[in-house]
């Protein structure tokens, strides 16, 4: 009875003690045995990867995502049709395996598979670049705010509050109006409004990290503030940041599609999944495949990203051990 209680304790305890327990930093000295599966001296990244590999849904999603990316990048090279090429013999043809248009054509006779893959390039690259922009701004802003503390922190977080109270659509549209409808600026505009949560998360991390001994040691050694932020604070708050990034990617893809759906995204002849879905919606009754094909690509990608994000969170969160 006692031993079973003990086992129960050991199982329930990480939820409360993990906050105080240090993560193993790098491959340093062997740690006292804590989690049943953790190997001594294993780095956080290695351990997370090992745990992620055991998550079948997350691994399947990862493979699917890699495949999706490869298909979107390389696919158009192997297809006989071009992005804006019109097949004068096939307007609004349904998907068929016999003809040349496996996923049908749109109302203008353009091959839907080709267009969907091109759209995927845009959607996926928006996801990558916009997430990167929001990551850089958010991490730097949050780390500086948390590290400086006091009045600077107050001021910087007040600014974040103000940004939160502005309607999101207003900001995005305004940025696009000011900078014009350039595709790179869409990336930047989305990134520039998505960094708020990231900044808050990193600030919270920094606030708790900066009281720790290794930061004090860096101070004592005379390391410059800027170096402490970039070399010590940011790398050590990477766990929650990665988790949040995996949540940001699907959000950004969705946002780009949403903007494109409203006619504010990329412009003809370039396309994205959002544009294709919007076109599909208006042709829904006569040509349902025009909606279903891009929507399916989008949904599969978002599904995989979410599964992968959940898996990463479980793998990185010490409390779920």
């Amino acid at each position, binding site marked *: 009875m006692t031993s079973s209680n003990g086992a129960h304790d050991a199982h329930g305890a990480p939820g409360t003690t993990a906050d105080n327990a240090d993560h193993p930093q790098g491959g340093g000295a062997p740690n006292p045995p804590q989690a049943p599966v953790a190997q001594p001296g294993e780095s956080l990244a290695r351990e997370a990867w090992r745990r992620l590999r055991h998550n079948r849904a997350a691994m399947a999603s990862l493979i699917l995502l890699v495949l999706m990316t490869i298909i979107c990048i390389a696919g158009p090279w192997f297809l006989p049709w071009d992005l804006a090429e019109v097949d004068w013999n096939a307007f609004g043809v349904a998907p068929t395996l016999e003809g040349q248009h496996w996923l049908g054509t749109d109302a203008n006779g353009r091959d839907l598979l080709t267009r969907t893959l091109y759209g995927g390039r845009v959607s996926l690259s928006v996801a990558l670049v916009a997430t990167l922009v929001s990551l850089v701004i958010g991490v730097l802003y949050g780390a500086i705010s948390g590290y400086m503390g006091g009045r600077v922190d107050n001021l910087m977080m007040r600014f974040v509050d103000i940004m939160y109270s502005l309607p999101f659509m207003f900001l995005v549209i305004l940025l696009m109006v*000011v900078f014009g409808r350039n595709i790179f600026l869409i990336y930047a505009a989305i990134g520039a409004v998505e960094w708020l949560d990231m900044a808050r998360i990193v600030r919270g991390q920094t606030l708790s990290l900066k009281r720790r001994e290794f930061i004090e040691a860096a101070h004592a050694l005379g390391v410059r503030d800027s170096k402490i932020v970039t070399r010590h604070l940011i790398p050590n708050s990477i766990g929650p940041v990665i988790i949040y990034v995996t949540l940001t990617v699907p959000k950004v893809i969705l946002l780009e599609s949403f903007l494109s759906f409203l006619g504010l995204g990329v412009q003809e002849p370039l396309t994205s999944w959002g544009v294709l879905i919007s076109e599909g919606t208006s042709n*829904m009754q006569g040509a349902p495949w025009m909606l279903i094909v891009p929507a399916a690509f989008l949904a599969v990608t978002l*599904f995989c990203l979410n599964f992968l994000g959940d898996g990463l969170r479980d793998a990185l969160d010490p409390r779920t051990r």
Partner: protein
Amino acid sequence: MLSYIAKRLAMAIPTLLIVITASFFLMRVAPGGPFDGERQLPPEIEANLMAAYHLDEPLPMQYLRYMGNLFQGDFGPSFKYKDFSVTDLIAQGFPVSLELGGLAIALALLLGIPMGVMAALKRNSTVDYLLMGTALGGIAVPNFVIAPLMALFFGVILGWLPVGGWNGGALPNLVLPVVALAIQQIAYIARMMRASMIEVLGSHFIRTARAKGLNERQVIWRHALRPAMLPVLSYLGPAIAGIITGSVVIEQIFGLPGIGRYFVQGALNRDYTLVMGTVVFYGVLIVLMNLIVDLLYSLFDPQIRYDD
């Protein structure tokens, strides 16, 4: 409690002032103006129009005039919707958005919370996977895909419900847009509820409750549910403000006269006063919602008190 509310509202005023000022000048910095349409206006007429709306004055003057009017509750006339003041537009559209959004949130809570609790109680079972898979579907398939598909299926193919239109808020017209709005919220709330319920069920006070011999139902209803709802509560503040100010996509797909479209159209048309109206309206709502959420916190978590 009352003094806490007063303090919070007083703190919100500078934030709102900055938001209003920033959006006023940002909007004016953006290239283009409210009167460059497809048809080029003769210069005299344009000058007259500019004078009529005081757009010929220096920007700081315009700003002061706008703020002065705002303090008297006057949002000014809309540039694009002639003969309508911004107050009229919001007063006409908001009840529609409020009804849709309110019903959608109610539906989301009614379905999302039980879904999350059930999944948490049956963690890692088939029920859990089924519920969370469905929830993930609600997140992965955006509402601008779900809404047209629902309209096609229930409206066109089955003919059970009208495809669009407001019709004075008749129930059949409400069903599709409310469900389309709610799906994503149901998914978010269910996932959040599951995560926090799992955490709460692992905490010491639940073990104590079980140890003193309460049956499972009492443990859940009396002890676990309220603290587990805290994350959902803090999510709801901004979420409600966002949803009751309308969804441009849902309004566009179902042809509804809400205020969601003004956020987009106002900015695109450089309808300065309309944009400012929506920004102010949204900002006030966000402040109020966050305040209400913080006050509700003390109901859900006895550790939080707002006495002085």
